[in-house]
């Protein structure tokens, strides 16, 4: 048995503001009232895992606002960040150097990985090759902070928190990169009306599908309060509590919609006008206070087809991951791959609508 002080880990030397361990969610226990939780932007987590050779659903660190600084207490630890976050490396005897996101980096014992501000989106993800040697709870490593459920006592990373590493599962390999950051698409957020659209006036449904909304200041992992035109119910806003999903848009008696995110309760008693389609959940999960959004209705069949196409796109992004290009020189193979990927992106967006691509990606110009 290795003494705990020698066990391979990342140690938090500065906690940042709100970093939690998340995987793709704790499904299967909602009948107990157990929220699903999980990554707000599952595309970001999946791509970060792909960059370090992990299965897509391996738990990583979801970082909001300002990231932590992590000291590497193991040899050759491969990490990757996906999302709009500055990062840098402090290595003994060297001046601090900025690191790129959307690629892997192999860190040495004693290195300090400093994760900075998350700007242009609500969250970014850090994945570590092999994942964390933490005990799953009810089959998941997702953290539900409100009830202290999940790894690390269900709390965000704190000063001195040790993140034990699963070295046995760490796939070996050279550092790799995504040719470009993921494109989350733009335009109106697509919804399927219901389950209780019949509880709203026809004018309210029209308003909901035509007006612009902004994310209000009450925005967290549980949901986004939306500022914009109020939506009138035909009668009471209250229904016998029924099931909620991530993406449910519930409207309490004051008529102000609330878009529920991953830490939503399993059931709720307000009428729900519409549900964000699963393909657009990563987009809304990345919204921060002040973010603008509008809604467009699609059918369930359309939503399912959009999601299947999106999965093909994500698979193409993962296939396009390539060894980090040496500095200088033209890499013909990489150019070819980029074109291929761009082609797939066009298919997904259908209309080449990349209106908000820069904002949605939060990519530095």
């Amino acid at each position: 048995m290795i003494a705990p002080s020698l066990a391979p880990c990342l140690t938090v030397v500065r906690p940042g503001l709100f970093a939690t361990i998340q995987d793709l969610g704790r499904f299967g226990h909602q009948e107990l009232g157990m929220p699903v939780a999980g990554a707000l932007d599952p595309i970001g987590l999946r791509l970060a895992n792909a960059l370090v050779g992990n299965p897509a659903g391996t738990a990583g660190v979801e970082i909001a606002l300002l990231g932590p600084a992590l000291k590497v207490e193991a040899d050759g630890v491969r990490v990757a960040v996906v999302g709009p976050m500055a990062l840098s490396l402090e290595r003994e005897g060297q001046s601090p150097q900025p690191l790129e996101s959307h690629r892997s980096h192999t860190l040495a014992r004693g290195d300090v990985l400093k994760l900075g501000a998350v700007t242009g989106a609500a969250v970014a993800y850090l994945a570590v090759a092999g994942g964390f040697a933490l005990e799953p709870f009810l089959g998941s490593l997702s953290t539900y902070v409100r009830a202290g459920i999940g790894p690390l006592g269900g709390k965000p990373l704190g000063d001195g928190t040790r993140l034990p590493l699963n070295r046995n599962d760490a796939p070996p390999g050279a550092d790799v990169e995504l040719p470009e950051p993921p494109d989350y698409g733009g335009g109106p957020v697509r919804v399927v009306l219901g389950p209780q659209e019949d509880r709203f006036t026809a004018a309210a449904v029209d308003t909901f599908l035509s007006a612009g909304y902004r994310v209000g200041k009450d925005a967290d992992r549980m949901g986004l309060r939306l500022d914009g035109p109020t939506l009138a119910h035909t009668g009471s806003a209250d229904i016998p509590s029924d099931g909620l999903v991530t993406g449910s848009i519930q409207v309490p008696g004051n008529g102000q919609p609330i878009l529920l995110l991953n830490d939503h309760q399993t059931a709720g008693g307000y009428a729900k006008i519409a549900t964000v389609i699963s393909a657009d959940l990563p987009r809304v999960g990345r919204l921060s206070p002040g973010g603008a959004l509008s809604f467009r209705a699609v059918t369930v069949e359309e939503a399912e087809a959009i999601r299947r196409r999106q999965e093909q796109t994500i698979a193409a992004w993962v296939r396009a991951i390539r060894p980090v290009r040496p500095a200088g020189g033209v890499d013909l193979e990489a150019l070819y791959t980029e074109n291929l990927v761009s082609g797939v992106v066009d298919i997904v967006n259908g209309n080449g609508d990349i209106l908000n691509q820069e904002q949605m990606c939060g990519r530095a110009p």
Partner: protein
Amino acid sequence: MDVRFTTAGDTAFNVEFGEGIDRPTNARVMALHARLKSAAPPGLVETVPTFRSLQVVYDPIATSRREVQAAVEAELAHADEAPAAGALWRLPVCYDPDLGPDLVELSASLGLSAERLIALHGSTEYFVYMLGFMPGFAYMGDLPAELEKPRRSEPRVRVPAGSVATAGRLTTVYPWESPGGWHLIGRCPVPLYDGSRPSPVLLAAGDRVRFEAVDRARFDALSAEAAAGRFDPDTLRATP
């Protein structure tokens, strides 16, 4: 009997059996929940029972609404039989005004003595309609009609864990410290949620509950046992 399907995006839909909160409607929800659990059609993620509807969650990559709804309709054709009776629990409650700060005011507003309110609350076998709000939060009914009172107009910011409470025709035990708008009439000393148990949530939808009054000394003793991790929740199971 008619059921209504309502849509919750491309990952879930609801099977609605009625509009109200009543046992026959909920029994149909629980019967379908049990049948789908054992049938486990491909791509089904989970089903979530609520008062009058079952939420069916599926993976749109593995299956489709059309396929899952067809599987649900096939099960509905056989789901008339009553679901198996759930476990019966005897939960201790200390109805001390210090532990149930609304006891005096609530009984006065209902025109009852506190003693009568306590007797009525303990007179009924309750049914767990559903869980929600927080992990392990059980919506139980039906409260005797004499005790019916809507939620407080001003919810509390902090309700202590273990608080036994009523609202409308429902009663509950708060498993966690949380905000809450129900009337607090007592406190249960044993945890309804314990993450160290293999099954962390004590009560399941479909279970039955009887409340048994205990005095303050017994409450304190049970609280101490629970805090020390020495309380075996299986002792609360009523023998049939």
